[in-house]
């Protein structure tokens, strides 16, 4: 299967569980399982190539300028991880189906799970490190959703937030590291980076890059000191824990360290940082795990410990270490997933995960007991189970590792870690399953149905099979280890076997197992000591740090951002004036080259009206209705100015927009106070006036300056004028620019307009369904209402001219390509025609005659415009390439058919829909306010009187 499909499958599949949710829980889980299975099978189709030692590649250029390409690579390492992700994923899906209760939204759960799965598969298959970062962040987000899946649990939400914060911060630093790495190599492709070991290690930026990338890995893989988020993530449902914290999420950091191993390993920086972090994490995690009473917490810290073990192995930088790390990744995934699932079963059946309240479960849950015991013994490192093999190899490696000049430091620490590891494994078995049966379980436990125990049982079988017959997986592990190390792989062949003779590793192993048993014997006194020792609580420290950051940001932002809009506006205006002045004072001023054009009396009169209306507006703005009339005059004069200055399209647009804006403001004024009270002091008004005059002078100066000068660079307008007819097939250059040359801009604009209208609709809905509703219903109009709400004259006139206006709109639309007009203007004209019906005949009368909701009209408009653009793909042209032709149908004249007209139709529809939806929303508010609703379009209608003559009473207008 194509690698693209493999990565895309879980993402597309994530759409399905939500849809299948109503079909039942099994259907929902079934479809999820099928998606994973398909991806799994697809992965296996690549197995022959992998076994042949090939690397499967797939590449699409995304943004080659940035070095960001959708390049996928599947080699042994990626295949190995993908196998774990998809294989364990399927088991988790089966388990999760049976684990989640009826109250849990299964569709949501599986959607998140598939998103996560897709992101993980993406990480392990990315060849481009920028692409890898995208998937890396996606796993952080998806795991946030999964960990916080039980939204009703505060711990779940907090755990999810902590995980996101820690891994997100790590992700950020990793972006920095990856960018440095890309800069050093000159390519963001992993396959190239991995070939440049010498160049990278010699670069002065090597250490920063290494540290930044390791921060990402350590946070993701919960390495000390970032280990604290993992136990808190245990508030997630157990299937999530089993999936994220055994085989996937926390292994992502390990994966990346393994992936980067060829370029980073072997340097002292890598060795000291990675080995010591791993060693500390391993011992610390093991010790804490022993004293945890919560089954899942115990497993969480044991995961931390085992991740430390793998990290340490990778840190040593030897071929043997890498081999052991790969093998342990496989073994850990099998036994830890089985253990998490077993813990989930215990929790599910006994309703508690507290070890102190458990014990004796082997009689009640024999199946679970068997599975958990096999897995736990494997984790403890008991022979004939797979954990023993890789632990042995780890001890062997530790035996040869010299850290900080000491020969005994690593072996002793490794033995201590293994000892505690064995101890908590024994405790897990002993205190949960062994001992006498109790009668105080919160719920009488018994073995669950097969759906729940089969997945861990399968893993337990694997544990035994690998443990007894390691040669079965040996070749595969070697293959993966070779992929980790690149080509320079020097491995002792046939190392993985059960008996090596009396090696130091065997003695260390014996010490660990028997020491672990001894520690468990002494558990009670040790536990008392542990409880009384003061320890730093990571969660408290974390929250204190977050609180400190919040305070810091408040200290920084509150003085600046204090909620006063006036203040921001003032600061903005002054800053702009100052910037303008700076440019003026430091730049050079060229001499004017354009002659001033003389103005006749008509332009001067128009200018005078505009200035008078503007000044009047400022002086009388407290009378709000008057202010509206004055601003209408201003808008009108602006349109007239456009006509005069050779911009007929602008004039028509401005004029029609003016009409709808005034209607809108009138509707709003219906609710707002009619007067603005005097609040600011004279001083303040003077200050504002000074700032405004300065701003006005500045814009005046700037405008006057450039009006008298020519363009510095030649304008691209000439191109548009020259090609409008030849290339676009229209003589109205403005319209051709809108629908053809800059069609993509226009496409964006109608979408913005549509979104604005939908926003208004949403706000109205929120208002009408919120506390405002009652206020609106009880509102007493502040002015007496007209007795004749729907005057007959107006109703008749608007209806008579409706077809005429529509015809005008149609005409304006059609001629738009060659004469002033087009979709924008036609849309506004048609909107005005419809608005008039609302105004004259009332809201309910008009909306009852509305066939298509305005949302749909907006959507249709965007769709028509978009499909027109897509149409050009079918002839092999880029998006929105237009075409036109001339046809003649006798007896008509020859006329033009252009795809641009279709695009303009989309613009038209979007404008009609957006304007109408906005105005309709406003009038819906008004409708709620006036409870008296009109039944008829006219309050006084003579024809009604005639028809009602026969009936008993005659309706009277109200």
């Amino acid at each position, binding site marked *: 299967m194509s690698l693209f499909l493999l990565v895309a499958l879980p993402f597309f599949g994530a759409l399905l569980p939500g849809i299948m949710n109503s079909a039942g829980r099994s259907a929902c889980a079934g479809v999820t399982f099928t998606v994973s299975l398909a991806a799994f099978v697809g992965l296996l189709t690549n197995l022959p190539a992998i076994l042949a030692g090939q690397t499967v590649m797939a590449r699409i250029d995304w943004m080659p300028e940035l070095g960001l390409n959708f390049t996928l690579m599947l080699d042994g390492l990626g295949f190995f991880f993908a196998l774990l992700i998809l294989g364990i994923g399927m088991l988790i899906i089966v388990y999760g189906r049976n684990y989640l209760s009826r109250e849990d939204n299964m569709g949501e759960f599986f959607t998140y799970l598939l998103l996560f799965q897709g992101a993980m598969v993406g990480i392990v298959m990315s060849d481009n490190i920028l692409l890898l970062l995208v998937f890396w962040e996606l796993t952080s987000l998806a795991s946030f959703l999964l960990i916080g899946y039980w939204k009703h649990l505060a711990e779940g939400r907090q755990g999810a937030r902590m995980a996101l914060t820690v891994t997100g911060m790590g992700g950020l630093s990793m972006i920095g590291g990856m960018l440095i790495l890309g800069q050093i190599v000159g390519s963001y492709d992993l396959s190239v980076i991995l070939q440049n070991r010498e160049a990278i290690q010699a670069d002065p930026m090597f250490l920063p890059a290494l540290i930044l990338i390791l921060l990402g890995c350590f946070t993701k893989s919960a390495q000390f000191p970032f280990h604290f988020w993992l136990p808190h993530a245990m508030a997630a449902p157990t299937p999530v824990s089993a999936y994220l914290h055994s085989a996937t999420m926390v292994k992502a950091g390990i994966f990346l360290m393994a992936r980067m191993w060829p370029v980073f390993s072997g340097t002292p920086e890598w060795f000291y940082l990675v080995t010591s972090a791993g060693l500390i994490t391993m011992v610390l995690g093991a010790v804490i795990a022993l004293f945890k009473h919560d089954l899942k917490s115990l497993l969480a810290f044991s995961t931390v410990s085992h991740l430390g073990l793998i990290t340490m192995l990778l840190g040593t930088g030897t071929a043997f270490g890498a081999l052991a790390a790969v093998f342990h990744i496989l073994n850990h995934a099998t036994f830890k997933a089985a253990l998490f699932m077993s813990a989930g079963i215990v929790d599910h059946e006994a309703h508690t995960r507290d070890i102190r309240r458990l014990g004796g479960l082997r009689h009640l849950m024999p199946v679970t007991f068997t599975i958990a015991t096999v897995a736990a013994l494997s984790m403890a490192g008991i022979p004939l189970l797979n954990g023993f093999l890789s632990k042995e190899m780890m001890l062997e490696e530790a035996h040869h590792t010299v850290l900080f000049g000491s020969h005994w430091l690593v072996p002793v620490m490794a033995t201590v870690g293994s000892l505690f590891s064995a101890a908590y494994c024994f405790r897990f078995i002993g205190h949960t399953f062994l001992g006498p049966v109790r009668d105080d379980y919160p719920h009488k436990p018994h073995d669950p149905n097969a759906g729940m125990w089969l997945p861990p049982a399968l893993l337990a079988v694997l544990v035994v099979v690998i443990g007894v017959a390691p040669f079965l997986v040996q070749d595969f592990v070697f293959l993966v280890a070779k992929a980790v190390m690149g080509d320079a792989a020097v491995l002792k062949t046939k190392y993985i076997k059960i008996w090596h003779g009396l090696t130091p590793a065997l003695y260390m192993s014996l010490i660990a197992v028997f020491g672990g048993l001894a520690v468990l014997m002494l558990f009670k006194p040790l536990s008392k000591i542990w409880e009384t020792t003061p320890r730093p609580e990571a969660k408290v420290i974390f929250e204190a740090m*977050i609180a400190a950051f*919040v305070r810091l940001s408040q200290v920084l932002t*509150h003085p600046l951002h204090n*909620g*006063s*809009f006036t203040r921001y506006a*003032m600061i903005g205006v002054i800053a702009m004036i100052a910037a303008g002045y700076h440019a003026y004072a430091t730049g050079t001023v060229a001499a004017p080259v354009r002659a001033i054009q003389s103005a006749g009396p008509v332009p001067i009169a128009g*200018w005078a009206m505009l*200035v008078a209306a*503007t*000044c009047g*507006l*400022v002086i009388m*703005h407290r009378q709000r209705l008057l*202010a509206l009339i004055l*601003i209408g005059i*201003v808008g009108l004069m*602006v349109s007239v*100015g456009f006509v*005069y*200055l*050779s911009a007929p*399209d*602008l004039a028509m647009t401005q004029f029609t*927009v003016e009409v709808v804006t005034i209607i809108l*403001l009138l509707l*709003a*004024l219906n*609710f*707002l*106070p009619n007067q*603005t009270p005097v609040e600011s002091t004279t001083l303040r008004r003077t200050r*504002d006036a000074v*700032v*405004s005059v300065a701003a*006005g002078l500045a814009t*005046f100066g700037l*405008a*006057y300056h*450039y*009006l008298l000068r020519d363009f510095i660079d030649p304008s*691209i307008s000439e191109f548009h*004028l020259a090609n*409008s007819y030849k290339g676009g097939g229209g*003589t109205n250059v*403005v319209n051709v620019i*809108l629908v053809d040359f800059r069609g993509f801009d226009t496409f964006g*604009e109608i979408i*913005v*307009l549509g979104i604005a*209208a939908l926003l*208004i609709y949403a*706000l109205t809905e929120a*208002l009408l369904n*919120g506390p*405002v509703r009652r206020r609106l219903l009880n509102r007493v109009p502040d002015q007496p209402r007209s007795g004749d709400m729907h005057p007959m004259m107006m109703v008749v006139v608007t209806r008579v001219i409706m077809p005429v206006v529509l015809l005008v709109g149609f005409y304006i639309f059609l001629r738009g390509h060659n004469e*002033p007009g087009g979709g924008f203007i036609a849309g*506004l004209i048609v909107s005005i025609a419809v608005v008039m019906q609302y105004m004259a005949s009332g809201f309910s009368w008009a909306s009852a005659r509305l066939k298509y909701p305005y949302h749909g009209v907006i959507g249709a408009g965007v769709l028509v415009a978009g499909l027109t653009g897509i149409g050009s793909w079918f002839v092999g042209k880029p998006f929105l390439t237009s075409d036109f032709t001339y046809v003649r149908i006798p007896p008509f004249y020859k006329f033009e058919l252009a795809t641009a007209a279709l695009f303009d139709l989309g613009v038209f529809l979007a404008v009609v829909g957006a304007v109408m939806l*906005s105005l309709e*929303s406003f009038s819906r508010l008004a409708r709620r306010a006036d409870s008296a609703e009109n039944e008829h379009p006219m309050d006084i209608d003579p024809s009604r009187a005639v028809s009602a003559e026969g009936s008993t009473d005659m309706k009277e207008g109200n």
Partner: protein
Amino acid sequence: MELLVASAIGVLTTAGVYLTLRLRTFPVILGMSLLTYAVNVFLFASGRLTIGAPPILSDGATTYTDPLPQALVLTAIVISFGMTAVVVMISLGAYLGSDDDHVDDPIEAAGSEVRK
């Protein structure tokens, strides 16, 4: 002519800025509308002023005005309607919700706790 247009832009800006600095929503909306006019005319004028030469291609005409700013301003006018409508709706919602049409909303010092 240039003087008239430039001064009109200046006057519209002055009035717009002054009204934008008022304390109630309605004058602020009016002020922003005036600023919209000013900006649109300013952008339009960046194509320089031409009288009697609309950008409609015809056989007789020899000069045309600059069509590009016109196309930009045309969409700007329509978008500004959308913007005005949204701002009006927000201010209306705020007024209906709190019976207060002030634009300034000082942050209370106490209301800034870390959300748990």
